[in-house]
């Protein structure tokens, strides 16, 4: 019965102390949290850590749930903020930009067939500046509209559109560089 209830109703119930509603929300959304965290960081371990942190904090965060946005949008925002927090912490420890780089090292033992594609992915993601990476993660990774991504990131739809064209430009120039080599 709970499974057919909308996320928003569940979230409101959970915020009001409904344990089952909260459990259903988690079951529905853990994979999404983990997936987005991975797309934003490029590190499986970081994504798991983040997902755990986010889940752990979700009960407290839910107190801020006002039902004003779609739950998924609200949740994406929580994930993006958590990743930003983590980046800031990493930056202070001069470990910025490690995420996708780490991932590139860690995937050594992957299937050879996937390797070229993943190499390219890791390279492409590493070369994009963080704000473009986030945009890519939401728009391409999560298949969001530019308007939705704008809501999550707190930016206008126009900014997202500009960012995506910027991504396109950079990818193209990357491809050209590779072709020239």
């Amino acid at each position, binding site marked *: 019965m709970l*499974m057919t209830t909308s996320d928003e109703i569940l979230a409101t119930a959970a915020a009001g102390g409904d*344990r089952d509603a909260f459990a259903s929300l988690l079951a529905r959304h853990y994979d999404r949290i983990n997936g987005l965290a991975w797309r934003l960081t490029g590190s499986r371990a970081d994504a798991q850590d983040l997902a755990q942190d986010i889940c752990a904090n979700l009960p407290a965060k839910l107190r801020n749930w006002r039902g004003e946005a779609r739950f998924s949008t609200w949740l994406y925002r929580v994930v993006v903020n958590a990743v930003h927090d983590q980046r800031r912490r990493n930056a202070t420890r001069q470990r910025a930009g490690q995420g996708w780089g780490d991932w590139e*090292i*860690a995937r050594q033992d992957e299937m050879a067939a996937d390797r070229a594609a993943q190499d390219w992915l890791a390279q492409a993601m590493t070369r994009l500046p963080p704000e473009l990476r986030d945009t890519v993660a939401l728009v391409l990774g999560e298949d969001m509209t530019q308007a939705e991504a704008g809501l999550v990131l707190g930016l206008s739809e126009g900014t997202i559109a500009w960012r995506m064209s910027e991504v396109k430009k950079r990818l193209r120039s990357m491809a050209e560089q590779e072709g020239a080599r």
Partner: protein
Amino acid sequence: MTDELDALRAALRRAEPAPDARARDAAIALAMKNFDAEQRAVQGLPAAARPNSDRPSGAGIWNRMGIMLKGLTTQQALAGTASIAAICVAVVLTGQQGWKTGTVDLPPPVIATPPESTIEIMPEADVPTIAESTAPDGRTDLQGQAVPLPQVVMPEPMAPMADSAMESTAPLAAPRTRQERSVMPAPEMEGTGANTLGKSAGADALGGMSAAESAMPMGARDLQIQQEPDTEAFANEAPNPVKVTAEEPVSTFSIDVDTASYSVVRNSLNMGQLPPPDAVRVEEMVNYFPYAYPAPAAEDGPFRPSVTVMPTPWNPATRLVHIGIQGAMPAMADRPALNLVFLIDTSGSMDEPAKLPLLKQSLSLMLGQLRPQDQVAIVAYAGSAGVVLEPTGAQDVSRISAALNNLAAGGSTAGAEGLELAYQVAASMTGEGEVSRVLLATDGDFNVGVSDPDGLEAYVAKKRDTGIYLSVLGFGRGNLDDAVMQSLAQNGNGQAAYIDTLNEARKVLVDQLTGALFPIADDVKIQVEWNPATVAEYRLIGYETRALRREDFNNDQIDAGEIGAGVSVTAIYEVTAPGSDGLLNDPLRYGAAGDTVATDSDELGFLRLRYKEPGGDTSILKETAIGQDTGPASDDARFAVAIAGFGQLLTGAVYLGDWGWDDAITAALAARGEDAFGYRIEAVNLMRMAQSLSAN
């Protein structure tokens, strides 16, 4: 969309790793716990218990905690309330538990839901009392780690925070996150060690644990000693039963030179808790101690068994058959060169004083024992595995020490990947006639990257055939996966030791280094055939996890334990003569098996041992009869028996009758012998501790 974007989209989709089911379950369980805590907090019921040791700041989640705390002076700290301090620490540890919980995979939509009765079960009145009574003392635990309280205090004014739904990325966000964590009371802190009792490795730890935890009333258990919530798993089997010789005359098992169990027992007792019975493996307790059994002569081969028949201290109607096997001590001057690969767990969970720092010290101690022709390499695993130190000559101590000291804990554990890399490095170092060994140092936690512990064991077993040995050094408590450690060391032809103090490190890595690192006999199996004319019933004390099938004895494909240079191994049987009033089984009414024994021999039995030369493929058989009269028992034999009694008392074995702690202590003291290193008197003191604890 353009091609580039489509390509990126496709790549992002394809590369997305499947969520790790265990991480998922752990995260969800943690969230549910916090949810419950949140509900309690909303109802104004703060609660927390204080664990007995703090973590130093480190990487990952813990680092953030550390950074937060660094800004606080002692005075500020003291201004905070004790209960908040306790809450902070409790939450950190709970986070760890969630992350480290080993669970079986649940089908995706199912959540491991703790029972709903959590709130009701919490005795509210107890809660503040506990926080106050346990928090403010800067207690020192028995591992010698000071527990400074002020570090963990959070100033109260941070508590009420803005509650805007749209959380900005302002710097406030990070502390805020922590504050939210801190409102979580942590009833789970209470000695969950007990909850793992009887739980076999691989059982559903999560579901069982959360249920048990939430049902655990705070304050009901010993408040002085509070353990971190743990996810420990111990390998054990039910104690060996008494067997009827007429039905099953042959007893077969593999030797066991591990000592981990004794150290774990000691660690538990020193923390003021009886060890979980599953952590007690009697043979490992007995074999922890060095014994000086008669050494093999040149013609004896690599080891010599000596058998002593002696009265049973706990049962006048039975006798003990003590089998002591003494390994030869080859001339160490011309020992082969040694290639060591330290495979070091640097996952976040290792960031405790009793883990990584102790590990570094331990391995540093060991460096002094190596020779210039020996080589050392270091592989770290956490998040991504990597070679930290390329193979380096042992004379280059400064370089090795520097590499050791640079290790820092952080990330999650990818044990399998690290293990593969370590074996690769070891293989690259191995030269003709050299001994190569991977020395895995871990808190036993292989939670990431290994979907299948059996697969890991199979991998180690395969690598064993390359001649590379694997030993496991366990550190720290809390998520010690003793079961995985055991099985890796067993399958990897190695030894599992648990190191809880620098003293223990010295014992394992300095005093007994040669025994730990240089095997003199591989795949040592013991088989005893009892003579039904003189032994009606028998019972092997310990070795439950080492039992072999009778036919395995002659099968050289079956793996068994190794004996290291100069090491002694002890096995003890309790035997009952026919007609004795100590017999536990009545004769059969119809089966006449017992009546038809026709043998003139008065031997008790016949001892067979099989072993292989190190690296050899074919086993060699050694045989000797067990006579009735073997002369008086040595101090060593009697001490081993006292320890066997100690182990059985800890597991609540049923064969000891009225024989209790006082008897064990007396017996151990009487057989103390020279005890130059004080190991035996330490055991006596542990018995006294256990006696006091079990009296409660």
